[in-house]
């Protein structure tokens, strides 16, 4: 286990020196920080704007960081030949892949945490002002604080999954192709329910369409399950059991993805 954490630590420290990641983080925090300004553009829906922009930015910029970091983690080691001295040491390929992922996940988590703190600060400033205008919604506002923390927590696991897919894609394809592949999986994965609806025989789907679309639905990661913005806005309390079930699904999918990554990388020449 020790080599995994050593590789992860080195990856984490190196990743923080990637300027484009720092650039994305700064831009994301600027967008989140200025979300209260955008809120004035839609009178009556200020809170929705703040939450949409804040949580949306965390998920979108987190996804960008995961894709651009994940697709470079292993190829950079191969191109710079730093992998040669590492794999010549008692570090198995499985330990290397998991170490790289873990280091990347640490980097992504730190970025998400900073974005999450920025959003929470904006929300904590803005929410009391809006609550003062609607004292009857006190309970809804109270639920929002806990739901927002849960939404940020879910975005961690969503982005870890994107990172895992990006790392595995980079062991299979060229950089450009792995970036495109990960984006496609992410955006199509956001609409996985749509495939299930299309495959519904009651909607007139043919047998072949049912099999094809049903298979796509089963294979694709269901990224939309990580999005609980609707529940936040409605002030519906999202129980921890639901959150843990979603996290469990994400982790299970991630384990399978990383296992595929290991199997591919185990056969790869460096």
């Amino acid at each position, binding site marked *: 286990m*020790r*080599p995994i954490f*050593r*590789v992860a630590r*080195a990856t984490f*420290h*190196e990743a923080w*020196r990637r300027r484009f990641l720092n650039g994305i983080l700064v831009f994301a925090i600027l967008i989140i920080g200025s979300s209260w300004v955008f809120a004035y553009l839609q009178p009556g829906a200020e809170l929705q704007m703040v939450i949409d922009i804040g949580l949306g930015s965390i998920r979108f910029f987190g996804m960008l960081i995961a894709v651009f970091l994940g697709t470079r983690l292993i190829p950079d080691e191969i191109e*710079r*030949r*730093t*992998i*040669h*001295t*590492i*794999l*010549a*040491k*008692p*570090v*198995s390929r499985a330990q290397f892949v998991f170490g790289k992922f873990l280091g990347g996940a640490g980097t992504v988590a730190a970025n998400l945490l900073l974005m999450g703190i920025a959003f929470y600060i904006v929300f904590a400033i803005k929410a009391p002002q809006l609550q003062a205008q609607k004292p009857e919604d006190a309970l809804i506002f109270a639920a929002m604080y806990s739901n927002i923390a849960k939404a940020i927590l879910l975005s961690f696991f969503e982005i870890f999954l994107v990172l895992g897919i990006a790392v595995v894609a980079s062991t299979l394809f060229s950089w450009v192709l792995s970036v495109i592949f990960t984006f496609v999986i992410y955006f199509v994965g956001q609409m996985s329910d749509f495939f299930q609806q299309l495959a519904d025989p009651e909607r007139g789907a043919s047998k072949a369409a049912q099999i094809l679309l049903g298979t796509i639905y089963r294979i694709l990661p269901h990224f939309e399950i990580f999005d609980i913005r609707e529940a936040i806005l409605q002030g519906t309390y999202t129980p921890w059991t639901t959150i843990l079930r979603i996290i469990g699904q994400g982790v299970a999918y991630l384990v399978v993805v990383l296992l595929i990554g290991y199997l591919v990388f185990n*056969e790869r*020449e*460096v």
Partner: protein
Amino acid sequence: MVGADWPAATGRCFAISLAIKTENLSKIYSHDATGRPVGLVDLSLEVEEGQVFGLLGPNGSGKTTTLKLLLGLIFPTAGKGEIFGHPLGSNAYKERIGFLPEGPYFYEHLNGIELLSFYGSLFGMGGGRLAARVEELLHLVGMWDRRFIRVRDYSRGMRQRIGAAQAMINDPDLLFLDELTSGLDPIGAMEMHKLILELRDQGKTVFLCSHLLKDMEPLCDRVIILNRGQMCETGAVRDLLRVENQYRLAVSNFSDDLSRRLVALAQRTEPEEGLLAAYFADQNAALSAAQEASAAGAVIEELGTHHRTLEEVFIEAVGGEE
């Protein structure tokens, strides 16, 4: 442990431990226009523990491919190999080896201490033991005074020195060194040569890859010469350099008469920067020619058995293949 029976001069047999053994190890990437395989073809070698073994060959001869196969970075298309009795690529032998790649690359943000500590930690080293080992190695490779400089600011020679240090962090029994002296100044190169000889004296096995034949000659016990992915010469260095029945006499301050006389007596003669070198098939003929030269007032600069240089062996082997 892999062993091979080797009859000693006493007639007894005892086992010699092999650090490396390969049998018909091949890695064929493709075939050229003439249908000749590109890569490494049927390499069979045995490296005994405690030897300094040299892998020589021109560019594209398969040296790097051989190293990568031995380290498990790439996989053979045919044949097999073992290091300390473990199959190639296995993690089991990596505890006991060290590797310095050619033009080594490291994490740029680390300084010398952090870099060696990182590699040491991959062996499970830590605490005071690791710190002491790091300090010892930084002194050994002459980097102690520059230990806080980050890798990104290293010169080529500094990278080479820190590369040698990381290869030795685990006190390995077998060292793979690819172009060890590349980028080093003459003093640095001399220090590295001394280091290799010290490692040999400690019983370590050293597998050297280089094209600097003059460097390899005094260091290696055995060499293998590769050309176009195939072994074209192998053996103990002293055997490869020896020329059977060849004696050399070199004289200076010689007259034209003596020069003509030596041409008549010797198998062949060669002028060499103020000297005249004469080669004889018979030891007595060389001795009587030396006496004759001395009587004629010439100075005997050299008299003895003739040895080739490794460079001559290499050119002959590679040229023959070409």
